[in-house]
């Protein structure tokens, strides 16, 4: 059963359509990445799911309930983008306030808060006012307040924003641990490499429309494109390969062979064997998530899963 589900979700700000009928589903225990350029509608989607913003049309469900209900919010954690924690709080008091609002008993808060501050590595600033925190520390604190009450679904909007590389790695590991414990993580991020490493499924929004959705493997797969290299000094018979109906191009110290629709690479392998050439490297080439994203940004994407 999907823990997050939207159906033809629309949101208009005046004449500007921020979401144009987005439908997606996130299963329990997934780390789900939402990608898109600035203004694509990522934060709007999260805000609708959390009841911060009202949809113009369509439906959104969270944990099986209409999104935004108070009872549902109790089971959800959220790290907003560009958050501004009240400067009068210390790290401890902010977590105490947040957890108390979620109904965590005082005794549990006393036990959990130091643990959580240690987990996100800001224990040394426990009783320091937040206005004295660096951006990275605030981000770590934000993550702590989002997960302290042990929510079933955690929305993280740009969680590594302002965090150094070591911190980013720690946050990635944290997300992986959360997935292992059965939490569902909904991640908004500009850092494509990060999403690629940690997310089970990814959706890409462009101008309020869902243009790609699927597993990372689905999105980055490029069927029918192979890289091959031969033993040193040997040369690919490009003309023979072309006669078989394949496209060939030199790529570095090897070649890139593109298959026609419905064909396999086997005829090329047989041709090389017949010519006595020694194959050293043959691998189907995958696109990076960045390639996919850039292609979508350039307007190449089409809506639908795994495309």
């Amino acid at each position: 059963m999907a823990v997050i589900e939207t159906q033809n979700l629309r949101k208009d700000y005046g004449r500007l359509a921020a979401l144009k009928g987005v439908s997606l589903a996130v299963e329990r225990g997934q780390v789900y990445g939402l990608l898109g350029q600035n203004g694509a509608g990522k934060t709007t989607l999260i805000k609708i799911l959390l009841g911060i913003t009202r949809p113009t049309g369509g439906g959104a469900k969270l944990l099986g309930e209409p999104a935004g209900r108070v009872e549902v919010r109790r089971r959800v954690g959220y790290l907003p983008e560009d958050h501004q924690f009240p400067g009068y709080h210390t790290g401890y008091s902010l977590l105490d306030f947040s957890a108390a609002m979620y109904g965590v008993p005082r005794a549990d808060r006393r036990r959990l808060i130091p643990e959580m501050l240690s987990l996100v590595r800001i224990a040394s600033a426990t009783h320091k006012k937040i206005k004295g925190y660096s951006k990275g520390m605030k981000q770590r604190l934000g993550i702590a307040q989002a997960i302290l009450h042990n929510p079933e679904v955690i929305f993280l909007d740009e969680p590594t924003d302002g965090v150094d590389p070591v911190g980013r790695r720690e946050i990635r590991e944290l997300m992986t641990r959360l997935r292992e414990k059965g939490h569902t993580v909904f991640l908004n991020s500009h850092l494509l490499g990060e999403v690629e490493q940690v997310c089970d499924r990814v959706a890409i929004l462009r101008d309020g429309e869902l243009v790609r959705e699927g597993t990372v493997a689905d999105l980055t797969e490029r069927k029918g494109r192979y890289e091959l290299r031969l033993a040193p000094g040997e040369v690919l018979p490009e003309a023979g390969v072309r006669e078989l109906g394949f496209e060939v191009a030199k790529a570095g110290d090897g070649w890139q062979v593109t298959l026609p629709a419905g064909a396999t690479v086997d005829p090329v392998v047989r041709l090389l064997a017949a010519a006595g050439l020694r194959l050293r490297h043959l691998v189907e080439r995958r696109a990076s998530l960045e390639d996919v994203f850039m292609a979508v940004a350039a307007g190449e994407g089409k809506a639908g899963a795994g495309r």
Partner: protein
Amino acid sequence: MKFLTVLKDSYREAVDGKVFQAMVVLAGLFILFVASISYRPLTLEDGLARKFGVLNYLLKAGGQAGAPQLAVENYRVTNGAAVPWEGDYELDVVVTCPDPKVLDELRKGNSPLPASAPAVEALLADDYYFLTNRTVTEVKGGPPTEARIRVTTRGTTVAEGTAWLHEPTILFSVPAPIFIDTLRTSVYKVEKYLVNEVGSRVLLLVGIVVTAGFVPNLLRKGTLDLYVVKPIGRSELLVYKYVGGLLFVFLLTTLTVGGVWVVIGLRAGVWAPAFLLLIPILTLYFAIVYAVSVLIGVLTRSALVAILLALLAWGLLFLAGYLNEKIRTVRQAEAKVRQALAGDRPPADAGPPPSAFGLPPWVETGLHGLTTVLPRGFDLDTQASRAIARGVLTAQEVEKERLNDPLPSWAETVGVSVAWIALLLGLACWRFRTRDG
């Protein structure tokens, strides 16, 4: 639990700005200032000497050569009373003048200077009417430059010390003879003018400034999401924030009014519980203005605009109430005059009364309508003054101060005010609930 959590959050916000601490210190200093005022019962000798001192100064300042001078001599409390209002007295009022002819003229004429027995009696009748069984006789045989009038009294009409003249001392050591009055009148003035008219306004002003930021800060971009994503309704959150601000002022008011009540009780021995009514009255007054501030805060997200419009609302409420009260007073006086002129005759149809202060009739009607439907800030002010007066003054004194005129009932004053608060908060909640983000 959520209520307490939000309340604690508001407390942190108020404390972080150091304004709360500053207000507590200010309230402490205010209480200390009131505590520095002591009230010394004035003996008859002191009272006369103060009066004669002023007269002597004025006579000398008149520049007349050989001006007469007044003094009190041979002062005695003949019954050895421990407190002045239980004393029997004997004293001489002495007028000396270098020129016997001038003195003779003073004795014969209708001079207000107490150079003769009738003049001294007139003085006592005016200022010391509470001294009973007075005998005033001129002592003969003195030098020609001196008039000596002997006064003896037996008993007073003063039953208790609060009705006796007292001289206040401020800042623990500075006498303030210009404020000499009966003890209860002095206490009434401190409570009415110093506490209710100055202290309470400063407190409300600071309360408005400190709490005006609560809602705009909550609505700040980047902060709002952190609050509204919590499992709490937006209206609930806003009302809790409102109550937090209200509690802040309630605590400050309780500290200030309670502290003043205690120090006045300790210093003057006047324990008037009615004075403590200022706590709920001021809190309700603030609740009205703060509801305006919250609504403006939700609409504009600006603490500055919230402060300015809340102050404007406060000023308009006061002005409307004040003008309406003035017109009402004029109308009452007119009615009394007409009644006196008409005597037992049936009232003639003189047409509509002329407009008060030359204002067009619609202004008077409009003001009356406004003060009827608007929150009752001015009525609360008046109720506070009356509570203070009733706690300290006698029934006659309350009558003399014209504090017995009819007022709208408490139920009406509180009811209309609370209805306005509910309306303003309702609007604020509706806007907060329906806004995106």
